[in-house]
């Protein structure tokens, strides 16, 4: 359902309305969270002002927000790519774990290599492993019509547990009590853009991929075919498009981007792989893709929003007694409203068709 709406562009409504439409769920979510804040004895306006200042108040804070948005751009993109072909991949979280571990392992194993070799190698490892992780759900959906929501969701648990076991055993850093790999070589680190901020070259990679995605989606035959397959698979098949193969390809691409998100997180931020590596970037990515309606700009803005919330939320609890959970509430309600709005658009469109 959502894939159909995400993939389509509506031409009957004016352009400004289409641009403003995703703001509806945002406004609704902030209003609802304001009620929660108010009920908890806070002044919502003060809290929101504080959030905005913490997220965008200075160049350092903006850098921190962009850094927090980086994995979300990638996970949002990974989700959107699969969505476009009509597959609801909720397994990006798992790809982050396996991709992150793969990149870190390359990063601490081949310590002698120069950066120009080691860094690409580590990222390629993340991409390959993330992609492979989605091979089975992709094949199952394309060939046997097995629901990808179930398979990819379950694979998340396997990915999280499998990597946790690996970093507790075979890949545990010597002498470490934590469930973590050794630190990666300096040559494997993604260069920082604005030290001391954690913002790193991974952000540039994410932006470049967004640009490629926009071009691919609007200009290429494959992007066109993917959109048709996501909107109406029977029509696509009757037009001669190999829909099952397309679904497999897009699941692999989705997994590759998810793995890359993990690799960038490992090489750019954490410097190694630790258990509990991702605080749910993959799941927030679903919200980013839904809110961004599958468009490159939309994904960027939605990732920026959630990045800002995560960044500011982490600091406001130092300066106020507002609990960080308000950020989770906001994130969750934005997602529920965004999905509800999509459903509503879908029902309305079907009624008019």
């Amino acid at each position, binding site marked *: 359902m959502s894939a*159909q709406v995400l993939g*389509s*562009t*509506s*031409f*009957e409504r004016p352009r400004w309305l289409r641009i403003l439409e995703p703001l509806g769920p945002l406004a609704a979510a902030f209003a609802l969270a304001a009620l929660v804040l108010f009920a908890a004895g806070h002044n919502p306006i003060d809290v929101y002002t504080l959030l905005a200042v913490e997220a965008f108040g200075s160049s350092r804070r903006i850098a921190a927000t962009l850094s927090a948005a980086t994995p979300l751009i990638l996970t949002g993109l990974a989700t959107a790519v699969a969505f476009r072909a009509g597959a609801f991949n909720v397994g990006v979280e798992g790809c982050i774990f396996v991709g992150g571990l793969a990149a870190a392992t390359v990063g601490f194993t081949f310590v002698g290599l120069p950066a120009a070799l080691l860094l690409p190698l580590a990222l390629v490892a993340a991409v390959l492993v993330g992609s492979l992780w989605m091979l089975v759900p992709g094949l199952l959906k394309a060939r046997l019509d097995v629901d990808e929501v179930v398979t990819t969701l379950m694979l998340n648990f396997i990915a999280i547990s499998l990597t946790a076991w690996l970093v507790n055993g075979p890949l545990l850093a010597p002498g470490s009590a934590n469930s973590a790999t050794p630190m990666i070589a300096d040559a494997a680190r993604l260069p920082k853009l604005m030290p001391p901020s954690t913002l790193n070259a991974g952000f540039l990679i994410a932006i470049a991929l967004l640009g490629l995605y926009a071009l691919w989606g609007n*200009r*290429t*035959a*494959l992007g*066109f*075919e993917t*959109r*048709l397959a996501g*909107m*109406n698979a*029977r*029509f*696509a*098949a*009757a*037009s*001669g*498009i*190999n829909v099952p193969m397309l679904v497999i390809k897009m699941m692999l691409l989705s997994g590759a981007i998810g793995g890359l998100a993990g690799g960038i997180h490992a090489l750019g931020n954490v410097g190694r792989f630790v258990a509990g590596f991702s605080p749910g970037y993959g799941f927030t990515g679903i919200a980013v893709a839904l809110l961004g309606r599958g468009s490159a700009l939309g994904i960027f803005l939605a990732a920026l929003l959630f990045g800002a919330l995560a960044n500011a939320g982490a600091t406001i609890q130092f300066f106020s007694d507002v609990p960080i959970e308000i950020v989770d509430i906001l994130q969750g309600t934005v997602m529920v409203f965004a999905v509800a709005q999509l459903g509503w658009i879908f029902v309305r*469109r079907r009624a*008019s*068709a």
Partner: protein
Amino acid sequence: MQAAEEKPDPSIRLGARGVTRRFGPVLANDAIDFRARRGTVHAIVGGNGAGKSTLMRILQGVDRPDSGVILLDGAPASFAGPAEAFARGVGMVHQEFMLAPGLTLIENLILASEPADGFGRIDRAAALAKARELEALAGVSLDWDTPVEDAPVHVRQIVEILRLLYRGADVLILDEPTAVLAPAQVRELIALLRKLRDEGRTILFISHKLDEVLAVADEITVIRNGRVVDSLPRSSASREGLAEMMIGEVLARPEPRAATAGTPVLEVAGLSARDLRGHAALSGFDLTVRAGEIVGIAGVAGNGQDEIAASVTGLCRIDAGTIRLAGADIAGQTLAQRRSAGLAYLSPDRAAEGLCLAAPIAENAIAGHHRRPDLCSRGVLRRKAIARHVGDLLDRYSVKRASDRQPAGSLSGGNQQRVVVARELDGDPKLLVACQPTRGVDIRGIDFIHRCLLEYRDKGGAVLLVSEELEELVALSDRIVVVYGGRITGEVMRGSAGLEEIGRLMLGGRQG
């Protein structure tokens, strides 16, 4: 109002008076009148698209008439939905059975009205007692604990009928009930229906199979193109008379045409294929379509014509046989490969398969051609060339539109079909498989599409035409191949096409 003047006649258990239902330009039911008397089997007979299904939906309360009324016990009535129809004794057995999989027969029997004890637990003993009672009534004996999936089709049908009785229906509407049955089972069903009738129930028997209708019905109403042609008692009905009423007259008989057909474009030999349910739909089927020729396939729905089209397009797998397109065997190829070998396909399901309604017209107009060198170079779409091409194409086919970017779903049915025809005839295909090319299209659109097909043929194109509209087949085809039960029962050339002859062949008669 008429209702006030006319005195209700309680002997009429179920009927319709002036029931009219319009879908866009299509008048599905046009002032339908019929009266089914209590304790009789009343058959409603008509070809595909005659408006039977719409009428059934209205009688079930699933749909409402635009004007006219349902008659219940002779008096005007209206149902808010199937539940209310049920409450007033009217139940229906659908063509696609509606039993819940995963449950046993008895669980299906009592579904939605389970006998329960004081704690809300299902009283199985009471259910079984009731089931045995119904069994005796129907003169059958069933193993009620069989899961639905394991029960043969005719048993499932009996359970469907008993379920209506269980829930107190005394009017049974059966939609094409024999479509899934073997001949012996048909006889059993007919015996069961007679028994139920003799006990005072009223049965509405929807069918296009005249032998069965003549065997079971007390009264027969024939509908065609949404109108009642005639209602007559069984005693004054004949097979030939009914066939003629079902099929009607062709307004203008096409002139014979000098044979200009060229080399074979499509050669099908020994084709066997199965339908969606896995039953044999075609066996040892042979067919040739030549360049500059339209070959029509006539047949009552479900006699293999859909599988012929699906086999040629590659949308269904075949069990045996060869399919050659311009000399090359395409049986193992994908639809994409067949398309690049010169196949074009007009889908019978425009909304779900022929178009992507949510996508812009322009994208619909190039789908399938979008990798052609003039529209795409090295995987990148040539947007300007596409815009120009689409504009020209849509202008040539006079598609009425505000913009090439508006969604295809915002066009009228006729204009939607013009987009499909424009796309499929684009790029000079060798063979066009046209299924129901004018379904849901108004008269002007029909005329336009017919001219497109004829023009394409005159330029040397080969057309395989599958249509439920016999008049369309006769008007367009150079040859009509009649199928029945997955086999060819005869072939009629243009000009010599006697409708009575085609009708007879469609109903399984042999060519004399």
